[in-house]
């Protein structure tokens, strides 16, 4: 088995998996019917993309496992998502800030992966990109609407941006594996994505009247399996069916 490729796929897929789960928690709890439907649609898109990644990872692993084994039967320290996507849905502004930063990273990431020399990663990226353009538009429009809305919505949007700001750095932290994958033409170049991310998020925040935080410090550890305490609670719910009824299928 190509362990490095397998591990790299987890680094790509665990972010949309955990974020997709957080968004799915909003099903039936969105602030309005339209936003409820939009957030769960985004969740569904992300789960679909994750399924494509995990099917490929299972094939690369070559142990006869399925995408479900990879999604549901790993332990906390084996997940490779960044800590940002684990953060809770405190209010709609938090949901939007988390989505906005993730989408601003996800789109250029997929644009890069589309050019991967790995045919299947390239195919998954091309496919996902069509969907992620809609997410990217949705979250940035809401940052503007809330930031430039009422005093209350502005305060909440600013609070959410301030909260998520020190989680962003981890997205661009290049692990040894990511560096190697970039150099061999399989992976994305996180160093090149960062300025794209910065200029886009700065432009939207300026339009929204949001003060851009100045701190450079960032939480870190998720990519190496050191997570916030949120992940344990997320997995308890995410994995419940497979843990309680092993090998169950619908």
């Amino acid at each position: 088995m190509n362990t490095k490729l397998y591990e790299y796929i987890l680094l790509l897929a665990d972010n949309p998996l955990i974020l997709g789960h957080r968004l799915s928690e909003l099903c039936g709890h969105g602030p309005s019917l339209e936003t409820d439907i939009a957030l769960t649609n985004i969740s569904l898109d992300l789960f679909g993309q994750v399924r494509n990644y995990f099917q490929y990872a299972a094939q690369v692993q070559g142990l006869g496992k399925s995408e479900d084994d990879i999604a549901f039967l790993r332990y906390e320290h084996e997940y490779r998502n960044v800590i940002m996507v684990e953060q809770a849905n405190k209010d709609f502004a938090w949901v939007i800030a988390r989505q906005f930063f993730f989408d601003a990273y996800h789109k250029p990431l997929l644009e890069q992966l589309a050019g991967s020399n790995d045919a299947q990663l390239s195919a998954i990226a091309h496919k996902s990109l069509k969907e992620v353009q809609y997410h990217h538009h949705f979250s940035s429009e809401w940052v503007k609407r809330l930031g430039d809305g009422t005093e209350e919505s502005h305060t909440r949007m600013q609070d959410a941006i301030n909260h998520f700001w020190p989680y962003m750095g981890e997205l661009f932290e290049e692990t040894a594996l990511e560096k190697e994958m970039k150099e061999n033409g399989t992976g994305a170049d996180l160093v090149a994505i960062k300025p794209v991310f910065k200029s886009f998020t700065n432009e939207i925040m300026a339009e929204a009247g949001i003060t851009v935080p100045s701190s450079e410090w960032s939480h870190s550890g998720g990519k190496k399996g050191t997570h916030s305490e949120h992940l344990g609670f997320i997995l308890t719910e995410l994995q419940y069916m497979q843990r309680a009824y092993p090998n169950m299928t619908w």
Partner: protein
Amino acid sequence: MNRMMVSNQEIRDILSTVTDPEIPVLTVEDMGIIRNIDIQESKVVVTITPTYSGCPAMDHIATDIRTTLKEAGYESEVLSVLSPPWSSLWISENGRKKMEAYGIAPPMEPTSDKKALLGGERIVKCTHCGSTNTKMISQFGSTACKALFQCADCLEPFDYFKCI
């Protein structure tokens, strides 16, 4: 193996009864999701491509294809490919007409949606009264592939099939 003496077209004709469970007026052929039919010695291999990554109808469609071919006397296998990614341009002309009659405004040229994503205007005709005085309520609708619109003349809401 005389029962495998079947043409590609005959298989396509059999599959013309398989429809999208979410838009039952559209066949898999109308949707443009059948990418290849390979007639082998002991089975027919049908390759399909998903419309959206998370489209829950795909597993259902794969099962329907196998069941329908089995009923017609053919063993089959359904494979899924992601590349090239499905495009709403692949929906047939006939499919677009059926979609509109069913109450879903068919997708326009992808460039028009791209323009709309960048803040431009896009004119979508109301499926109830035909008015072009409509507005988008939400980019995300009742399924992954649809956006929600409302007509400013007859005031009715309607679905629009997104361009991807």
